[in-house]
C-alpha cells in the first residue's frame, strides 16, 4: 500500500519542482531560456502522464470530501483526522454511557419485577436465561 503512495508522491514532487523551475524561468524571462521553457513544458506534460498512470494503482482509495475543505481553507488536513478521531471517541463514550445506563435499568427492572411478579419473572428467566447484566 505504501509503495503506491510513495510512487505517486515521488511523481508529484517531481512535478511540483518542475513547476517551480518553470516559475523561476518565467519570472524574469530571457530570450535564451525559450528552449529550456519548451523543454520544461513538455516535461510538465510527461509528469501529468505519470500521475495519470498512478490513478490505476489507487483506484480503491477513498478520500473524504471534507478534507478538501480543510485544504481549501489553508488548514492542515491532519486536523480533520484529529477531529474525526476525537468525535468518534466522544460518540463512542456517549453510546457506551447509554448502553451502560440501559443495562442498569434492565437489571433494576428485572429485580423489581421479580419482587412483584415472581412467577412470571421465573418464566421470563426460563425463556431468556439469567442474562441479567452485572
Amino acid at each position: 500500500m505504501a509503495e503506491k503512495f510513495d510512487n505517486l508522491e515521488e511523481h508529484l514532487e517531481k512535478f511540483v519542482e518542475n513547476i517551480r523551475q518553470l516559475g523561476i524561468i518565467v519570472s524574469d524571462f530571457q530570450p535564451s531560456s525559450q528552449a529550456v521553457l519548451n523543454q520544461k513544458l513538455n516535461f510538465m506534460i510527461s509528469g501529468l502522464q505519470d500521475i495519470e498512470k498512478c490513478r490505476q494503482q489507487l483506484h480503491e482509495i477513498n478520500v473524504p470530501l471534507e478534507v478538501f475543505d480543510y485544504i481549501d481553507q489553508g488548514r492542515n488536513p491532519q486536523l480533520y483526522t484529529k477531529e474525526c478521531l476525537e468525535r468518534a471517541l466522544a460518540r463512542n463514550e456517549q453510546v457506551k454511557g447509554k448502553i451502560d445506563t440501559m443495562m442498569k435499568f434492565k437489571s433494576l427492572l428485572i429485580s423489581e419485577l421479580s419482587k412483584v411478579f415472581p412467577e412470571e419473572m421465573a418464566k421470563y428467566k426460563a425463556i431468556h436465561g439469567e442474562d441479567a447484566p452485572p
Partner: protein
Amino acid sequence: MTEMFSTLFGQNEAQGPPGSSSLGFGPGKPPPPMPQNQVPMAGQMTPQLGDDGPTLRKTGAMNEPFYLLRELPVGNELTGNTNLITHYNLEHAYNKFCGKKVKEKLSNFLPELPGMIDSPGTQDGSSLRSLIDKPPVCGNSFSPLTGTMLTGFRLHTGPLPEQYRLMHIQPPKKKSKHKHKHHRPQDPLPQETPSDTDPKKKKKKRDDDPDRKKKKKDKKKKKNRHSPDHPGLAGSQPNSNSLR
C-alpha cells in the same frame, strides 16, 4: 396482581381482535376470569402470530405468557459498548494526532510546497472543491506539445508584472520561534534573556570577584602568618588532590 400481569401479556390478546393482538396491546376490557393453574391456549394464538414470523419467539415458547418477546441481540455484535478505536487498531493514529498539538497551517503539512498555500483557495480559484464541482473540460489523455503548439508559449523578455510575482514568494519561516521553543524549557528565568545589561553586570561582578578574592587571600595569608595555628603544606594537600 399476578393475574393482571398475565392477562396483560398473555390471555387478553388471545381473545381480542387480530390487529390489536399482533401488536401486543389488547383492548381495555378486563378479561374473563381464568383459573390460576390454567395455561393460556397455544392454539388460540398461533394463527394471529404467524404474520410476525421469525422475529418472534419460537413456537415452543408460545405457551408462555411472554410469547411476544423477541430474541435477544447476539452478544458478539459490535456496538458502542466496546472501544472502537482499540477495536480497529487506531490507537497509534489517535496518539499521533490527539496526543500532541497538530499545527494549524497547510504549509506545516506540506513544507516543501512552494508558494503561498495558506491563503484560502477560493481567493485565487485554486480550490479543490471547485475542481470537483466544475471539472475542467479536457481530453482523456495528455499529449506532448509539438513545435507549432509551442509557438504559443513564446514569452516576452523581462520580469513579470507585480500582480503575478506573488506566486513565487514563500511564506516567511519562523525559525526563531523554534529556537525559543528549545530554549524555553531550559531557561528557568526567561525575563533575563532579553535584557542586554544583565550579562554585562554579571561580567563586571566576575571581573570584580578575582580582585576581591586576591585581597581576601592576601589578608588571610597575613593573618595566617601571624597566627599560631598555621596549617602549612598539609592543609594544601586536599586541594592539590582534588585538582588531580
